[in-house]
């Protein structure tokens, strides 16, 4: 590793740098196994198909239909 690439450099907190380093050592297959999980999301997961003409229509639908705690509402 070049000297300027020490953990915590580049304005990256040390613990995050370490987490990124640990993940980089894993194969893509392993990274994906750890990353993709299935958890039930109310409303969102209750229909097999949805399509929205515009992204703004989708955002509005999220705000009007999804529980706020899911985090799909705009700030």
């Amino acid at each position, binding site marked *: *590793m*070049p000297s*300027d*690439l020490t953990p915590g*450099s*580049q*304005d*990256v*907190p040390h613990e*995050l*740098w370490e*987490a*990124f380093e*640990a*993940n*980089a050592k894993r194969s*893509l*297959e392993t*990274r*994906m*196994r*750890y*990353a*993709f*999980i*299935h*958890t039930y*999301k109310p409303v969102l*997961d209750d*229909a*097999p*198909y*949805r*399509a*929205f*003409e*515009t*992204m703004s*229509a*989708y*955002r509005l639908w*999220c705000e009007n239909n999804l529980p*706020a705690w*899911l*985090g*799909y*509402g*705009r*700030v």
Partner: protein
Amino acid sequence: MAAFDYRQAQEIRAALARHGVRYLFIGKSGAILLGFPDTTQDADLFVDRTPANGRALAAALIELGFALTPDQATDIERGKDLVQLKNGPFDLDLVFAPDGIEHFEAAWTRRIEVEGFPVCHIDDIIAIKAVANRVRDRESLPRLRAFREYWEAKRKGGLQTD
């Protein structure tokens, strides 16, 4: 519904390549392919919005086991801004007009290939989330920006993260 896995990612990569579909992984799934350690539920694809590309994508998805009706295939061919599929082997979001990216071509020229998977550049992934500005985006952006610094530092140092 099982979570999206590596084997399914390989299958979708192969099917979309067979049908000549132009697409990019975006969102958190794209960041994960680049090496970002986090969790997500579905895969998100940014798809080039042309009728031919949409037709090819619909055909590939049916081949992969998505139960698309003729109307749904038409939605994809037309390129509605967002199509959410939970009627196949894994959850998939098709995004034809992500916030924060003007044209597919611009994102395509900046793409990163990870084991043959075309992925949006981390800057584009961050830009999309910054413009979307949802609560969940606000929560993940500081870590994504830190990852960008790490990822760029590794690339400049000649070290591969993929």
